[in-house]
């Protein structure tokens, strides 16, 4: 099991890794944690002053930062915890029900 393999819900018992062992590094990128959220953060770009307090408090990698500026949420990684909304000093993030 020296190569990184992608494990998703289509993988067979023959292909899955023994005991769920993860025999590679840097693969949290492939782990989408955002599929069981009940509320989601909504980014209001107009209110955002790019202070970047939100990005480091995100427990996953739902807030992309490029060239010193944050972009919109990557919802695949967002569990809906709401820490970013709590920390935002200018109320540029609103938590809304996610249906």
């Amino acid at each position, binding site marked *: 099991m020296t190569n990184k393999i992608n494990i998703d819900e289509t993988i067979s018992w*023959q292909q*899955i890794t023994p*005991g*769920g*062992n993860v*025999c590679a590094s840097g693969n949290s990128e492939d782990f989408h944690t955002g599929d069981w959220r009940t509320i989601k953060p909504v980014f209001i770009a107009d209110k955002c002053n790019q202070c970047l307090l939100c990005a480091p408090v995100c427990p996953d990698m739902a807030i992309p930062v490029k060239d010193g500026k944050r972009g919109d949420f990557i919802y695949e990684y967002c569990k809906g915890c709401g820490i970013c909304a709590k920390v935002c000093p200018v109320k540029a993030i609103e938590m809304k029900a996610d249906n």
Partner: protein
Amino acid sequence: MSIRERLSGNEAIAFAMKQINPDVVAAFPITPSTEIPQYFSQYVADGQVDTEFVPVESEHSAISACVGSQAAGARTMTATSSCGLALMHEILYIAASNRLPITIAAINRALSGPININADHSDTMGSRDSGWIQIYSENNQEAYDNFIQALKIVEHKDVQLPAMVCQDGFITSHAVENIELIEDAKVKEFVGEYNPECYLLNEKQPMSVGPYDTPSYYLEHKRQQAEGMKNAKIVALEVAKEFEKISGRKYGLFEAYKLEDAEAAIVIINSTAGTAKDAVDKMRNEGKKVGLLKIRLFRPFPAEEIAEALKHVKVLAAMDKTESFSSQGGPLGAEIKAALYHEEKSPKIVNYIYGLGGRDVKVEDISSVYEDLYEILATGVTGETYRYLSVRNQEGK
């Protein structure tokens, strides 16, 4: 040349461990397996092995340390008995599902209560569904041979499961008998180096062990684990063949003793098989066609092969040295009945609970089982199928 010695079952296991020279042994003392880590720690102190010996504070810690060290990539083993194995119970499942080929020398002893330190199989039968391979041994020679073979079975790439090598507490663990040991170099060559594909201390290949498994994946992991167990049966036979080359001793999935033309037979595990062979010989001299099947591999359970070996028998007793409190017999009885269920002419089967808590079982006790089987054969009436052997019964009841 092999080495002729006189050793107890515990000494034989400790000696096998010395020859194997594992990377790590983590153990906690419990009667009657205590002597194994005791003798082994002497080898460590004397510099006869390179093993890291970890004297832990409980059996739960012992097996947890084993899990950690085996996952790190170290060949790891331990020994335990009875309540010690029961305390390991939670982690036994972790070891098996993480596919960590740890080896336990399990010295069979009754589980409390009432508290008792003598031999029966309630301890290892209690872990029969934990995913560990179980190999049972009639005497010190088999315990030694099985322990060495177990290592090659568990570490095989198609298996990757832990194993417990079982023998009866005191009866064989402490009784000194003649034994033929294999030369050090041959044992070392036989077991070879442990080279796992993935291990935590491999700096070239980072790895995570034991992640959370959601309902979307757990079933596939269990199915894969079951395949390892299925493969263990085939691998055990391959290893036995290789082992015969260095030892001259033959091993199969089980031992059939005078079974070929038997009309009445018993199925039995561990040391009482020796007593039962004497009973068989005695009755054969009287012209009775009796035989026995001694279990070696209980997990995986070689049901097809056992059914094939027993299907011609007319009447059969499965002998359980443990209770399951199902009110219809013990675990061996259940397996044997299941194995023979699909045979067109299945033997009549009764199930005896015997020798619990170290109760002595004599040749006459086993002979009485064969007499009971002949009674069933003569009358055609099976009667009660869930029986206690040689239990004191109030008169008239």
